[in-house]
């Protein structure tokens, strides 16, 4: 008897699930999460079932990553493998089921984040790509391109106020100053992203534009991509619609 085989997805080929996978990429401070949130609001207002998932959020490895970061014992390779584990777990639990059910899945960061970051940390770029070969190819991948100074200004002036140790690449010993380390590290990531945009044909967004302008651009691209998408809803959604149609308050004469 042969063991059950999970679908051997090959990253680089379109998936065949009824749902749609839309992802955003960009460095910290590019505004990608804001844009994805606004897109989610809009899709939901249109009656779509939307499922949201974000980088490094699975219960399975969150604790471990935290522990590793605290003891500063993570190496570029274990750092990379932990993120791949998180990704695999989320793919299995949060991405594949809704895609199979025909939902729209929104992902804040995807495998490309690993391709960019891990390469800068010094692991072999071809190895990271092989690691993620089981990933599902997104239907749409946005890259929010932003100059480093704009990102830094946003992060320092915004709610965060300071940089996190690993996000600033402090583990790489680039500079003792956190802001300076962030600048060097994220600049290198930006140039990795530029390569990835070409390699995987990501849709580049001008992240220096006003928020609502970017959102309009994004919604336009998404509308086109969803042209042939048949959206499905659970029973509850359907009943609500029918209910209002049948028992809606009659318009005053």
């Amino acid at each position, binding site marked *: 008897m042969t063991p059950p085989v999970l679908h051997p997805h090959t990253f680089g080929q379109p998936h065949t699930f009824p749902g749609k996978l839309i992802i955003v990429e960009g460095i910290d401070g590019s505004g990608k999460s804001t844009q994805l949130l606004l897109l989610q609001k809009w899709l939901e207002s249109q009656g779509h079932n939307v499922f949201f998932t974000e980088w490094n959020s699975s219960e*399975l490895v969150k604790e471990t990553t935290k522990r590793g970061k605290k003891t500063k014992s993570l190496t570029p390779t274990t750092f990379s493998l932990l993120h791949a584990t998180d990704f695999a777990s989320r793919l299995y639990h949060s991405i594949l089921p809704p895609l199979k059910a025909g939902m729209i899945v929104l992902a804040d960061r995807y495998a490309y984040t690993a391709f960019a970051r891990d390469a800068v940390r010094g692991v072999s770029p071809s190895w990271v790509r*092989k690691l993620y*070969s089981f990933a599902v190819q997104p239907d749409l991948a946005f890259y929010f391109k932003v100059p480093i100074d704009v990102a830094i200004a946003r992060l320092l002036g915004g709610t965060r106020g300071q940089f996190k140790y690993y996000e600033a690449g402090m583990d790489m010993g680039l500079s003792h100053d956190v802001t300076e380390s962030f600048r060097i590290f994220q600049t290198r990531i930006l140039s990795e992203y530029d390569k990835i945009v070409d390699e995987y044909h990501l849709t580049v967004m001008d992240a220096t534009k006003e928020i609502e302008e970017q959102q309009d651009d994004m919604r336009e691209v998404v509308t086109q991509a969803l042209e042939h998408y048949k959206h499905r809803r659970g029973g509850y959604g359907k009943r609500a619609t029918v209910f209002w149609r049948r028992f809606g308050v009659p318009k005053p004469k």
Partner: protein
Amino acid sequence: MAKGRQYFGDGLAYLNPSDLKGKLIVIEGTDGVGRSTHIELLQEWLEVQGYGVITTGWTRSSLMSRTIESAKEGNILDHWSLSLLYATDFADRLEHQIIPALRSGFIVLADRYVYTAFARDTVRSGNPKWIRDVFGFALVPDLVCYLRIDADTLALRVLESNGMNYWESGMDLRLGTDLYDSFKKYQSLMIEEFDKMAEEFKFEVVDARKPLEEIQDFLRAKIQPLLRQGPRRELARIPVPAGTADPSPH
């Protein structure tokens, strides 16, 4: 040391392995074949001869052992996550334990190595390629000894000692209706994988049903040629106080 030390695949791009002068010796085999007993005896034998020895074992890294334990309790792992957890544990031990020891000239005795991960993932996915890519950062060992056993004998041994558990029985694969059937089928598939790898990676195979002393002699005979050659200094014996029995065996 003609070719120097090598990685399986892409390797650790930031680390040159050529100056790792110690020896990496792997003892492989399915659950319950007696690997740890033999490793203990080998360590004793080597240390008596004056060699520095460290042992390293599957899922024993400080970073990952707790995570893997709790993940296994959940019983709902997909094969990618499970294999990547093992890979993370392995990488942590490789970089923090194995490589520093090899650099200092220790003999590293590894209780299981990447081959265990290869077998477990291939049995679950049916595809040997991905898992070999994942472990492309691992060092090729100097010697792999494989303690081979058949599924029937193994089942008896495991029942006599710790009993069968969920993961050793591959219950996640739903191969049989109960623990025993599942254990037999799962371990047979694992042994099949190991047999294929024995050829692919040139394992030294020993029958794990033989008496313990015989197996130990086999392992020592395989390890001996790897040890530092040439004459070592003759040391004077420390005189034994009168009235004490001769401590040396035989």
